[in-house]
């Protein structure tokens, strides 16, 4: 189980983005999270995936809190794939950065063989995002956080990608936290949806 236990965070001396935030995602469960822009969802996602330390509280993944030298069991897919892919690498190198377990998954995501020899600048945002997703679903991944993962894509691509991801998640019993402002999308893919502002005592400018 992925447990967020009472975390609080603010940037520098700014306003608290959230205080005492609690959230759990069970293995194999798909949780949809929505909230207005600037509420702090992406920040929370980065804390959950180990990119940032919370100022208070902790993240417990299947009973553990440290993974220093190993791959983190919680992987984050960012909204902008071009930032998380080294522009000097060919795509096949990206696929060696993580141990991608199932080649059929690449096909299901719509990744074409010939893309593997290209550089990131030669692919579209949607094409890059498929690679980022494939990498994030490395064999060591137990939970996936999809932060506006398909926001920039057209409806057909969005459906194709989510179909592949949900199928693999079900096979491997991976828990997913899907973050989006698109409530309609979340309702279609999630087992339950929650409102970010309901998670925390203080959230954004309205408090």
């Amino acid at each position, binding site marked *: 189980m992925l447990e967020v236990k009472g975390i609080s965070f603010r940037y520098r001396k700014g306003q608290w983005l959230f205080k005492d935030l609690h959230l759990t995602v069970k293995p194999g469960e798909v949780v949809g999270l929505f909230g207005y822009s600037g509420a702090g969802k992406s920040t929370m996602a980065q804390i959950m995936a180990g990119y940032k330390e919370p100022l208070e509280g902790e993240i417990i993944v299947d009973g553990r809190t440290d993974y220093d030298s190993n791959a*983190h069991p919680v992987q984050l897919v960012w909204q*902008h794939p071009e930032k*998380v892919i080294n522009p000097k690498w060919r795509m096949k190198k990206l696929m060696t950065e993580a141990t991608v377990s199932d080649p059929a998954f690449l096909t299901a995501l719509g990744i074409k063989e010939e893309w593997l020899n290209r550089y990131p*600048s030669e692919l*579209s*945002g949607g094409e890059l995002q498929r690679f980022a997703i494939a990498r994030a679903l*490395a064999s060591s991944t137990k939970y996936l956080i999809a932060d506006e993962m398909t926001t920039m894509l057209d409806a057909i691509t969005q459906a194709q990608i989510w179909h592949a991801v949900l199928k693999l998640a079900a096979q491997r019993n991976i828990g997913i936290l899907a973050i989006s402002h698109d409530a309609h999308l979340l309702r279609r893919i999630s087992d339950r949806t929650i409102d970010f502002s309901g998670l925390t005592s203080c959230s954004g400018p309205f408090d």
Partner: protein
Amino acid sequence: MSMQRIDAYATPTKSNRSERQRAWTRIILALLLLAGIVVWALLINADNLKVNLEGRNTAPSLAHLFGTDWLGRDMFARTLKGLTLSLAVGMLAALSSTGIALFFSLLSSWNKWLDDMVTWVTDLFLSIPHIVTLILLSVAVGGGFKGVVVGLALTHWPRFTRLLRAEVLQVKEAEYVGVSRQLGRSRLWIARHHFLPHLFPHLLVGFLLLLPHAILHEAAITFLGFGFSTDTPAIGVILSESMSYLSTGLWWLAFFPGLALVIMVSIFELLGRSIRRLAETSSG
């Protein structure tokens, strides 16, 4: 918005392309000239370097393009030999300094303490005039050939280290490096696969721009008498010897070797800058 950002770094523009073509032309030209110097020097007939007391102090002519010296040695042959020696020593020095700069910049990325140490040592070296550290080091290891090489190799890294360190620290903050870390990749792996490819063009350009520095410094300390011994066919030796003959009107003894040195150094500058242009305008 993200789509626009992706398009922005896609295809090189037209003016970019012609600029790249010009850079390539300059690079090829520079390489041909350098290869010409080396090949010509290798083909030099050893007889030309022999003492020939009948043909002493002759002014430049078709037989002796750069004239002859007070022992009748052909100055053209001596200059070419001197240039290749300078080139070899410069290469060795630039290569070692590049290695040191790379090592220090990667060390900087390790942790705050190592970064502080690297910055401290770099600043220390930069606060002393270069020629002073060069002479001190070269005297400390016993002078001569070894002194010059060690001195040059160990003094050309500080400015370069500063540049590489800034580059490494910038890539270290890139989001794709953070992702690598979360995927369990080790620091060594990240240094090898993220930092090195990013540094590679800087290493190449830095190495090429260090060469003229090292070559000029080698000539300078030799000229000042701290470098090669007088029996070495080095440009610095030729220049310092010819100083005593300048007053007697043997202008060609210093003029041509000096000019040749300046030309070779300029070729390296041209090469380094053109490659930098290429790296700056590349898309990938």
